[in-house]
């Protein structure tokens, strides 16, 4: 293969996207369609990663990386698994009220790690489920079953229940202790969660729930950029991976004369400015060395030892400008900003790949690297293996940048457009939306 520095932008993106897709091929259990959270041994399934996988199969069919029948088979395996899964909400079930536990055993599909029933991760899963159903529209028994299952799984989710008695959707629930006792505060990746919860024909959340959430927003001017504040970069990407947020505005964005897509563009500019200022003087930070986000990083926590001084945070949601910041950057978070700021992203990617070739294995980006914490030979610390969320958002955002394919698909989703409208979104493609024969 030719060195990455020698290939065109499109060839570079193609290679990175195809490699990201490879993660899902290599880490899927073909019996149930579930996909591991990471490539580490004995990794459990993250349901959100399954959502990304279900969105990746159609992309792979379009790109010629996967046979359509095989893509349908994989999607069906996952959808059937979730249909038949234990929904009793017991500590060893798979889900409850249509939601699923965050982490599942990859063989049996039951809850592991005492994880919570996760509202946001269920939303990311179901966004993938709906994406698959929007693509596989052929009049065949398999694809018809796939569409029926997708509809069934979506309609089964009791979003209203997830509101508890509070104003906003709860973050999670555990059979041992009930709802985690805090909701969503401040702008986050939860637009897709609220939109899906509002669009439900069966158990929608109450209409004021979205407003209660946006009432916790912080509209800020930082480094001379106006933006809706959220520290970690992934927050500015996850909802955008599925929903085309260009030119459509809820009442908050109408008041500010902005939209969520432009907001992610500001987030990139602010990240670049922050790493240029580099307040903690970390190695490798500059206008091309950015990407503070959720991801793996070095850790100095010694198991069982309390009260030690900690400067490194392991797997954490790092953010700008208030941290946490321990010098760790997330290359996938840079690449997934591609639709918002293609020039800055491509320049940064080429630059990072040149300076730190270790961040790429099998053409796949590591979850995080830290040039300030390295081996004695001057090599940066690099996260081992690969993470499904990283590969998923990279794959989808490259596709949205190249063809807008995912956005085109989801624009045709009735549930999403209804949810967006109930959240108060107007304008842009929503104006024509329903005329185009949405389902």
């Amino acid at each position, binding site marked *: 293969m030719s060195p990455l520095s020698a290939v065109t932008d499109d060839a570079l993106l193609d290679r990175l996207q195809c490699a990201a897709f490879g993660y899902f091929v290599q880490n899927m259990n073909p019996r149930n369609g579930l996909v591991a959270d990471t490539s580490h041994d004995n990794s459990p399934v993250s349901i959100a990663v399954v959502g990304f996988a279900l969105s990746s199969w159609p992309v792979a069919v379009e790109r010629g990386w996967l046979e359509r029948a095989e893509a349908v088979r994989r999607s069906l395996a996952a959808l059937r698994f979730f249909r038949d899964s234990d929904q009793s909400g017991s500590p060893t079930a798979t889900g409850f009220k249509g939601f699923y536990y965050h982490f599942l055993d990859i063989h049996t599909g039951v809850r592991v790690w005492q994880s919570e029933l996760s509202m946001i991760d269920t939303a990311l899963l179901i966004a993938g489920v709906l994406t698959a159903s929007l693509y596989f529209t052929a009049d065949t028994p398999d694809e018809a079953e796939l569409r029926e299952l997708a509809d069934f799984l979506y309609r089964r989710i009791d979003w209203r229940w997830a509101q508890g008695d509070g104003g906003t959707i709860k973050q999670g629930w555990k059979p041992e202790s009930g709802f985690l006792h805090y909701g969503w505060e401040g702008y986050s990746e939860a637009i897709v969660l609220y939109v899906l919860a509002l669009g439900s024909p069966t158990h929608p959340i109450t209409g004021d729930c979205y407003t209660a959430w946006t009432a916790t927003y912080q509209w800020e*001017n930082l480094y001379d950029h106006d933006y809706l*504040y959220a520290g970690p970069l992934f927050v500015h990407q996850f909802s955008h991976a599925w929903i085309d947020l260009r030119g459509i505005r809820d009442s908050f964005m109408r008041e500010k004369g902005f939209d969520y897509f432009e907001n992610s563009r500001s987030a990139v500019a602010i990240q670049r400015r922050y790493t240029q200022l580099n307040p903690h003087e970390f190695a490798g930070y500059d206008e091309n060395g950015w990407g503070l986000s959720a991801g793996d990083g070095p850790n100095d926590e010694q198991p069982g030892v309390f009260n030690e001084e900690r400067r490194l945070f392991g797997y954490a949601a790092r953010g700008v400008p208030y941290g946490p910041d321990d010098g760790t950057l997330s290359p996938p978070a840079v690449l997934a900003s591609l639709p918002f700021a293609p020039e800055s992203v491509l320049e940064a990617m080429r630059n990072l790949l040149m300076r730190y070739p270790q961040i790429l294995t099998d053409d796949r980006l590591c979850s995080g690297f830290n040039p300030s914490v390295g081996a004695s030979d001057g090599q940066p610390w690099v996260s081992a293996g690969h993470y499904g969320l990283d590969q998923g958002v990279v794959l989808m955002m490259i596709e949205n940048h190249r063809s807008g394919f995912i956005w085109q698909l989801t624009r045709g989703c009735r549930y999403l457009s209804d949810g967006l409208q109930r959240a108060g979104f107007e304008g842009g493609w929503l104006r024509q939306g329903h005329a185009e024969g949405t389902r």
Partner: protein
Amino acid sequence: MPPFDATVTTPQDACENKRLADVHPQAWVNPEPVDRYALIIVGAGSAGIAAAELAIAMGVKVAMVERHLIGGTCLNTGCVPSKALIRTARLYAEMRDAARYGAKVPDNIEVDFAAVMARVRRIRSHLSGRSSVRRLAALGVDMFFGNVRFAGPDTLMVNEQKLRFAKAMIATGTRPHVPSIPGLREAGFLTNANVFNLTELPPRLLVIGGGPVGCELAQAFRHLGANVTIVQDKPLFLEREERDAAQILSDAFARDGLEVRLNTQVTGVRMENGHKLVDLISADYRSTIEVDAILTGVGRVPNVQGLDLETAGVDYDAAAGIAIDDFLCTSNSRIYAAGDVCLQEQYTDTAAASARIVVHNALMRGRKRLSKLVIPWCTYTDPEISHVGMYVREANRQGIPVKTFTVPMHQIDRAVTDSEEIGFVKIHIRDGTDTILGATIVARHAGEMINEITLAMVAGIGLRTLAQVIHAYPTQAEAIREAAKAYMRTRVTQRLRARLQRWLAG
């Protein structure tokens, strides 16, 4: 090492004798009351003293009654001793952090805790002179010590003495709220009322509650060398503050090596073979830790019991305190309240300000409103967290369009030269105007910096004017002007830009 002795009494030394002679002399004989006082003040804390001073200045005959110590919580068990303690704690933290400043870390940093606390008590005693009974008596205040209860709508009893009043002000303050945790009372615990009496550092300290008092003391004891665990039942500290501020504090705690337990409750305290064991639960995760002392920093309860408020026709709630209107008047039009016993904002200066409003309204038929006060406050952790005015969520809730101008401290030269670049200045304005709605500052000296914004708010000064105020360079307060300048840059309109370019081109 002998086990930690958790029984604490104030060391009786010269400092302590001097303080008691100032704020509650043993030999004090209550004066003979006059027939009727224009104003009787119940409680000689910050509110009481402020009211007495103003009323005396107006030429009014005043009596003040105190059950315990003049100076109240602030002087004796609150702001004064805690700030004295925090100063020394910071010094030790800086010693350990000396390398960051290019200085040599001293060998064998050893905390002489008894000396730390002796300083705290010396300073408290030094400052008690300002609240001394002799000074108040010299001003003309009739000072009574004793138990006080109302005997009618215009009468109260001090011990067996009857005092009549035209107006009265209740300013009895609050006391620590001790949570009802099984085994806590039996095992013994510290509160702000006795923690400053310690002469020995508890090697392992549990702090229950992540409010301002809990956070300040937890960090101070950590800096002084204790292994501190702080337990908070909410997902973040300082529930009231914005989450970025609380998040920065969490990070600072982690940096300091505090053991932070968020979303966690204490379910019980047990003594087993002389060991103090504390049971914790977080969602479904149970754990037990062993400690030497427990500090409860959670909440305050108003001192409303034993006053026979019913007899005076004063409505109150055991948790929320005395009910007042916006003029600080109670349900008895002769009786007012001020300070912590009736206010949500429990700060010394707010107590004093509310007391002055009472004096105006009670004695001069004034119509000053509590709601017009602009109230700043600060939590003296490192970094400090200060706030004034509205929070964004309040503005959003009230439908006020709000925009925040944020300046991270790492953009400010003086913060960088002092290696104090953690934190930010956030000024919230009414979007589309330059009117300041509120501000939050997180910085090493946030408490000093918030005053400029408070002044601007009280004087009605907006960001436009603040942007023109030259600040001494280099100072950390420049962050405030930088926020104002950022605002001004957003006001440079396209038209102005085009005009300028035409002019420059021509």
